[in-house]
């Protein structure tokens, strides 16, 4: 039975946002007996609401509230009002994530030490190591039902994977498989196995793909300790004279302003909304925003070095049939600075339906060269690049005083200038992707620029010293002991891997810490 708590119940932990981080920390706390109110700005969808139609789904479940962009990144030109592709709904972006579930590598926790001081970056070592996170990675993979772990077989390869794997073998790659995917390859944990529907980005209609929407949140609710309030957007975090967080102000589904008291607050709105919320919570005592004595809130925004390559063949591929991202080449994620850049990247299979391919393939392109490719849609294969990008202080989320949301609060502006390291890595990866398809006889290959960011990281980063970041090794803000950050904005650096497993593992670890501190009377 889901719990119900009063607005003035100051025993509860309030969690803001129900995605990978927020859904996990809320559920794990509830499972430990802690009373939790989870506030989510978006609706609570049902599996029947998910649509096998890219635009219809996008319009239904995405975060479409205004945002602005600046900087020299191509997104600011191609998609100026849409810096990121994020879900607004119970389950957050785990509704439309593809399921790739990878661990960071040991050296990626020590990026500053291993890569050295690269000019124009704000590289920093994580205050934790892989060894510390490993038990939580184990726990997260088990809960998420990740293929290739816990004896769970990998998914079968689809056509897009077969082209990718054949090309990879010909260019000499060795670490090639269908991925560590949190998609059931056989029924597990009350959820069905993958039907190879192919609309993983639109919400899985078979329930095979893990999300906080279908796993953590229902489990948390069943404990009787978790109350989820959908369509409840938090506007501000409030504090008392001593500087302790006291609760949050939010707008409920009826448009009423509410105040929920809290003993602890966890912010998990993803890396654009989380810093925005802290900045919008500025007060007389904290004029620069909450937890921002370091001035680091909103800085060091990362989005991975990405891009895509599509190959056009003379025979059918039907890349869209089957799991969207079940294929990986891990060879280029190795530590090897001889390639002309620091950090590594993964190559993963990617398919887009015709509607999205037309929008993303070559933003702004038209004419016969463009339609020549789309005429061969059935003969295309695709892959995606995900690599470590460099944190920079000037790549940041700030409040845009000129544009307000419907509640009158300034929206987020996302400023990015690619670092030369990112540009060099993207060029290298585009070349390798092209070589893979050329090796299996592509008629043509196309390199696409980044899509609106799906991986958004780093804007409340974890640091050993309070002056270097926003949160400590537990995701607890350096400034306010009962205020935590529980999402991907904690990342000190991004690594080459898709981030969700690390977000979930950190949230599980944080839940253990909060529960411990609560029972010790420290919070």
């Amino acid at each position: 039975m889901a719990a119900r708590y009063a607005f003035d119940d100051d025993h509860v932990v309030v969690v803001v946002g129900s995605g990978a981080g927020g859904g996990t920390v809320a559920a794990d706390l509830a499972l430990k007996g802690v009373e939790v109110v989870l506030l989510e700005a978006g609706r609570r969808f049902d599996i029947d609401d998910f649509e096998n139609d890219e635009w219809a789904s996008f319009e239904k479940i995405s975060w479409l509230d205004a945002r602005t962009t600046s900087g020299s990144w191509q997104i600011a030109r191609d998609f100026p009002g849409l810096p990121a592709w994020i879900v607004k709904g119970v389950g957050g972006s785990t509704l439309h994530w593809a399921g790739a579930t990878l661990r960071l590598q040991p050296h990626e926790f020590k990026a500053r030490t291993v890569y050295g001081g690269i000019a124009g970056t704000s590289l920093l070592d994580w205050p934790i190591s892989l060894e510390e996170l490993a038990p939580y990675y184990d726990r997260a993979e088990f809960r998420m039902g990740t293929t290739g772990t816990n004896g769970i077989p990998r998914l079968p390869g689809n056509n897009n994977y077969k082209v990718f794997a054949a090309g990879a073998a010909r260019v000499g790659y060795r670490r090639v498989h269908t991925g560590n995917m949190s998609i059931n390859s056989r029924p597990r944990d009350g959820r069905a196995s993958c039907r190879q529907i192919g609309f993983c980005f639109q919400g899985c209609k078979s329930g095979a793909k893990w999300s906080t929407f279908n796993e953590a949140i229902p489990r948390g609710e069943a404990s009787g300790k978790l109350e989820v309030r959908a369509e409840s957007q938090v506007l501000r975090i409030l504090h008392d004279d001593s500087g302790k967080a006291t609760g949050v102000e939010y707008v409920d589904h009826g448009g009423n302003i509410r105040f929920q008291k809290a003993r602890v607050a966890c912010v998990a709105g993803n890396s654009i909304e989380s810093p925005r919320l802290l900045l919008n919570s500025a007060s007389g005592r904290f004029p620069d925003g909450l937890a921002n004595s370091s001035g680091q809130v909103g800085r060091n925004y990362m989005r991975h070095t990405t891009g895509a390559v599509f190959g056009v063949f003379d025979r059918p591929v039907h890349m869209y049939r089957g799991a969207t991202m079940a294929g990986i080449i891990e060879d280029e994620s190795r530590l090897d600075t001889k390639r002309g850049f620091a950090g590594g990247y993964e190559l993963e299979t990617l398919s887009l339906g015709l509607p999205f391919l037309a929008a993303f393939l070559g933003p702004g392109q038209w004419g016969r060269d463009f339609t020549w490719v789309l005429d061969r849609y059935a003969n295309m294969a695709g892959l995606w690049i995900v690599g470590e990008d460099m944190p920079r202080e000037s790549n940041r989320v700030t409040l845009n005083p000129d544009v307000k949301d419907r509640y009158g609060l300034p929206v987020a502006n996302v400023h990015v200038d690619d670092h030369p390291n990112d540009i060099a890595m993207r060029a290298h990866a585009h070349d390798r992707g092209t070589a893979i398809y050329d090796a299996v006889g592509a008629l043509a290959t196309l390199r696409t620029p980044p899509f609106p960011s799906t991986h958004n990281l780093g804007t409340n980063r974890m640091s050993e010293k309070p002056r270097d970041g926003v949160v400590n090794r537990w995701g607890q803000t350096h400034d306010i002991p009962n205020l935590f950050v529980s999402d991907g904005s904690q990342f000190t650096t991004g690594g080459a891997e898709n981030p969700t497993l690390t977000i979930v593992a950190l949230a599980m670890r944080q839940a253990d810490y909060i529960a411990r501190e609560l029972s010790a009377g420290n919070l």
Partner: protein
Amino acid sequence: MRAEHRMVEGRRAFMRRSGAVAGLGMAGAAACLSGGGHARAQAPAVLTREQVRTLVLVCRDIYPHDQIADAIYEQVVGDFDARAAGDSELARVFAEGLRDLDVAARSVAGRRYVDVVADRTRSLVLERLQSGDFFQVVRGGLVRGLYGNPAVWKALGYEGPSARFGGYLTRGFDDIDWL
């Protein structure tokens, strides 16, 4: 999605001109592009028949697919017309854009756009307009209207929704035979 953003930018530009506050987000963009629906046999609301004919040709020239019938492009133009009927700024963009198009066609080829026979020459004319609001509104609307149309999916070999058929597990997800 650039399409939408172009459209938003276009609309921002109008709003700036008309003194309104800029700052439409994706929601505005989505709303302004979701419009309309289906092919209409009846007379256009805002555009003249001549303008419809020109716009259909412009659409085909922007995204030429020989296997796609005019009727499909006409549906997109029908949606433009329906939207323009409820949006005077958009109506003005079409009116001014079509006028500029013929001016450009006359300067490049000495005749109206619809009377320019060579595809290449019409492309040259379009290139002159490609950074303007008119071109971007048409191209953006086409990305959604054309490539979101199940008839086009079929023509280009995209099978569309699959959950209702049980996915591709038993329908060829791994049937590639030429590698």
